[in-house]
């Protein structure tokens, strides 16, 4: 039964990897990245690697998308500020 679960999960991971890199909008991609990380964490757990699954839950599903989101936020914020400074002149 583990084999059925594992094989299906690997197929889902392969599909999501392709969908993840084919997404162009980075904000949407952040959500897809988090989903991909969660899938990888489940795969680690199914294949008996609980330590790595825990690291992947904390890092791949939470910390990485959060960092990407913070970087996008900062770039958007900088853009808005630049536009505001340009306006009065």
């Amino acid at each position: 039964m583990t084999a059925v679960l594992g094989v299906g999960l690997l197929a889902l991971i392969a599909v999501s990897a392709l969908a993840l890199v084919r997404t162009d909008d980075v904000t949407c991609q952040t959500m897809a990245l988090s989903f991909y990380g969660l899938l990888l964490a489940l795969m680690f757990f199914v294949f008996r690697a609980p330590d790595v699954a825990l690291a992947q839950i904390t890092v791949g599903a939470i910390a990485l998308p959060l960092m990407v989101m913070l970087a996008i936020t900062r770039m958007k914020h900088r853009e808005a500020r630049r536009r505001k400074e340009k306006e009065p002149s």
Partner: protein
Amino acid sequence: MKFPADYPYFVAAWILLCGLYGIVRSKHLVHMVISLTVVQSSTYVLLLAIGFRRGGYAPVFAGLHTGARVVDPIVQALMLTDVVVETTVVALLLAMVVKAYEKGGTTSPDDLRFLRG
């Protein structure tokens, strides 16, 4: 190389090629960094497929008798290191992306002309 027995190895290769494809067609530097994480996740699948052992227990002996047959802990330690290093690399790359945007005003890898000279 038979198909059903070596299925995870093919998945690892597929994920690696997907990530490289993302890097090649990328129009945004953050998109490129995310594609790089996809490339790196292929190594997890590969290492996991190598270290797996059918019918083995997870290598944690809490509530398990010590003679039990477990999957390989060394490969899992390698993967743990891999996950950690991936995070640090992504943090540094994202900081570089932010800085490149602030200095150059663009996020497209094709427009990074100001790097020349």
